[in-house]
C-alpha cells in the first residue's frame, strides 16, 4: 500500500522511461484521503505499541486476572455471537422476505441498540431482565433464574448490542439474494424451510459470516451495557474492557498491557478470516 509509483506514471506520459508495470491503482483524490483514513485508524494502535511498558510486561501479564478476563471475554463474545446467529438470522429473514404492516418500524426498533448509548442499553436490560424487571421478575419467581451479575448476563448484554450488526448485514445480503432460487427449490419439492436451509443459507453464507464477525468484534469490546447489567467480578463478569478500565485508574501500565493483549488476540482472529469467506464468490 505505497504510493511512490505516481512518478512512474507521469514519466510514461511525458515519454520518460517505461516501467514494466504501469501504475494502475487508485486515482489520487481517492488515494490520499484513503491513506489519511488508514493513518487515523492505525496511529493510536502504533502509539500504544510504542508507549507499552515492554520491560515490565512479563510481570504484568502473569497475573491470573489477566487471563481470566481474556478467557471470559473470548467465551462471552463467541457465545453472544452464537445467540445472535440463532435468533438474528431468522429475524433478518423476516425483515427481508415477509411483508407485514409496520415492517419499517420493526426494522428501526431492531437497529435501536446501535444508536443507544451502551449504558442506557444496560439500564434497559435491567428494567426488563433484572431481578425486579418486567420479565426478570417472573424468571426469578418461577425458575429462580436471575441474570444480573452472572456470566449469562454478560452474554445477554453483549448480544443486545451486537445482534443489530448481524441482522442488518444478513438482511442486506438476503435482499440482494435472488428469491427465485427458493422458488426453484419449491418446485423440486422443498418446503419453504427446507429451501431456506439448503439453498438460501448457503448462498448468503458470506454475508452471514461478515455479520457474525462484526457482531463478535462489537461484543468483545462492549463495556457500558456489561458493567451496568452484569456488574464487575473477576472470573465471572469481568471482561477485558472492564479490566482495562479499572486498571487504568490504578495502574496505567497494567492497563496498557491488558489493552495490548486484547489487541493482539483480536487482530489474530480478524486477520485469520479470509477475504473470500466474507465476500460473495
Amino acid at each position, binding site marked *: 500500500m505505497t504510493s511512490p509509483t505516481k512518478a512512474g506514471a507521469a514519466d510514461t506520459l511525458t515519454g520518460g522511461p517505461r516501467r514494466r508495470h504501469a501504475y494502475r491503482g487508485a486515482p489520487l483524490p481517492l488515494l490520499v484521503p484513503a491513506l489519511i483514513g488508514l493513518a487515523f485508524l492505525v496511529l493510536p494502535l502504533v502509539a500504544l505499541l510504542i508507549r507499552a511498558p515492554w520491560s515490565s510486561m512479563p510481570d504484568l501479564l502473569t497475573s491470573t486476572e489477566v487471563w481470566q478476563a481474556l478467557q471470559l471475554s473470548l467465551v462471552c463474545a463467541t457465545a453472544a455471537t452464537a445467540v445472535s446467529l440463532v435468533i438474528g438470522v431468522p429475524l433478518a429473514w423476516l425483515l427481508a422476505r415477509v411483508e407485514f404492516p409496520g415492517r419499517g418500524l420493526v426494522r428501526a426498533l431492531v437497529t435501536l441498540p446501535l444508536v443507544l448509548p451502551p449504558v442506557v442499553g444496560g439500564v434497559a436490560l435491567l428494567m426488563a431482565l*433484572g431481578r*425486579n424487571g418486567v420479565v426478570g421478575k417472573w424468571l426469578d419467581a418461577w425458575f429462580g433464574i436471575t441474570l*444480573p451479575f452472572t456470566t449469562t448476563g454478560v452474554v445477554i448484554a453483549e448480544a443486545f448490542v451486537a445482534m443489530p450488526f448481524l441482522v442488518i448485514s444478513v438482511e442486506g445480503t438476503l435482499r440482494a439474494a435472488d428469491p427465485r432460487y427458493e422458488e426453484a427449490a419449491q418446485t423440486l419439492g422443498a418446503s419453504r424451510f427446507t429451501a431456506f436451509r439448503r439453498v438460501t443459507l448457503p448462498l448468503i453464507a458470506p454475508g452471514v459470516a461478515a455479520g457474525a464477525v462484526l457482531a463478535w468484534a462489537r461484543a468483545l469490546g462492549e463495556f457500558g451495557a456489561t458493567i451496568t447489567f452484569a*456488574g*464487575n*467480578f*473477576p472470573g465471572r463478569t469481568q471482561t477485558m474492557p472492564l479490566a482495562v478500565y479499572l486498571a487504568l*485508574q490504578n495502574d496505567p501500565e497494567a492497563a496498557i498491557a491488558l489493552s495490548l493483549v486484547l489487541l493482539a488476540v483480536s487482530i489474530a482472529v480478524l486477520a485469520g478470516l479470509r477475504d473470500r469467506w466474507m465476500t460473495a464468490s
Partner: protein
Amino acid sequence: MMQVTGVGAAALLALSACSSSDDDSSKGSGSDASASSSPKLSGEVTVFAAASLKESFETLGKEFEQAHPGTKITFSFGGSDALAASITGGAPADVFASASPKTMKIVTDAGDNAIDPATFVRNQLEIATLPGNPDKVASLKDLTNKDLKVVLCDKTVPCGAAAEKALTASKLKLTPVSYEEDVKSALNKVVLKEADAAVVYKTDVKAAGDKVEGVEFPESADAINDYPITLLKESRNTDTAKAFIALVQSAEGQKVLTAAGFLQP
C-alpha cells in the same frame, strides 16, 4: 449512575466549561491581580469531586452562585480514581475533591496541584439495604451470608479500599456479586433492587432517602476516609476557585456537609 463512564465525558464537559470560562474571564473584570479587598468574583469554575459529594456539593454550588452572581460552578462527579487519572491525563479542572488521600496522592505526585491538599470532611462507611431491611442485616458479618447479593466498590475506588480495610480488620471474607466502579453505582444497584445490600458511605445512604435503609456497623470506625480538597495548577480562575474551596471549608459549608452525613475533619 449515568456519570459513571465519566472519564471521557468528564474531559469533554470540562473542556467545554473551560473554553467558555475563557470567554467569561476575558469579559469579566474580576480576575485581575488586585485580589486584596473582596474582589468581584465571576467566571466559571470546574470542580471534579468524588461521587459521594454529589448532593452536598451541588447545594454548595448553588449557594456560591447566589452569593456571587456572575459565577458558575460546574461539577463532574465520579470515582475518585477515575477523576484523578483524567486530571493527570490533562483534563482541565480548577478544583479536585477526592474521597481518599491515596487518590489525591495520584494528583500531587504528578504535581498537578497548586496548593497543598487539605482535609475538609471525613466519611464513614455504612451498609445500605433494601427498604425495610427484609434480610435483617444487622452487622458486617451478616453480609457474608451466601444467599445475599452484596455489591462493593472496586478496591481501586476509595470506598472499596475502605470496605476492604474494614473487612480485613474484622477477619471477614466477603465475596460480592460485583465490584462497582464508583459508590453511586454500588448504591444504585440496591436502589434498583438488583442487589440486597451494598457497602457505601453514610452520606450515600442519607442521600438515597427512603429508597434504601442504612445499617451502621462498628468496624466502619476503623476505615474512615479523609476527603482532601485542593486547587489545581491548571485552574484558569484561581480567585473564584479559591473562594469555592473557602466556602467548602467554612462553617456554612461544613453545615451543609454534616447535614449530608459527613464527619467533621
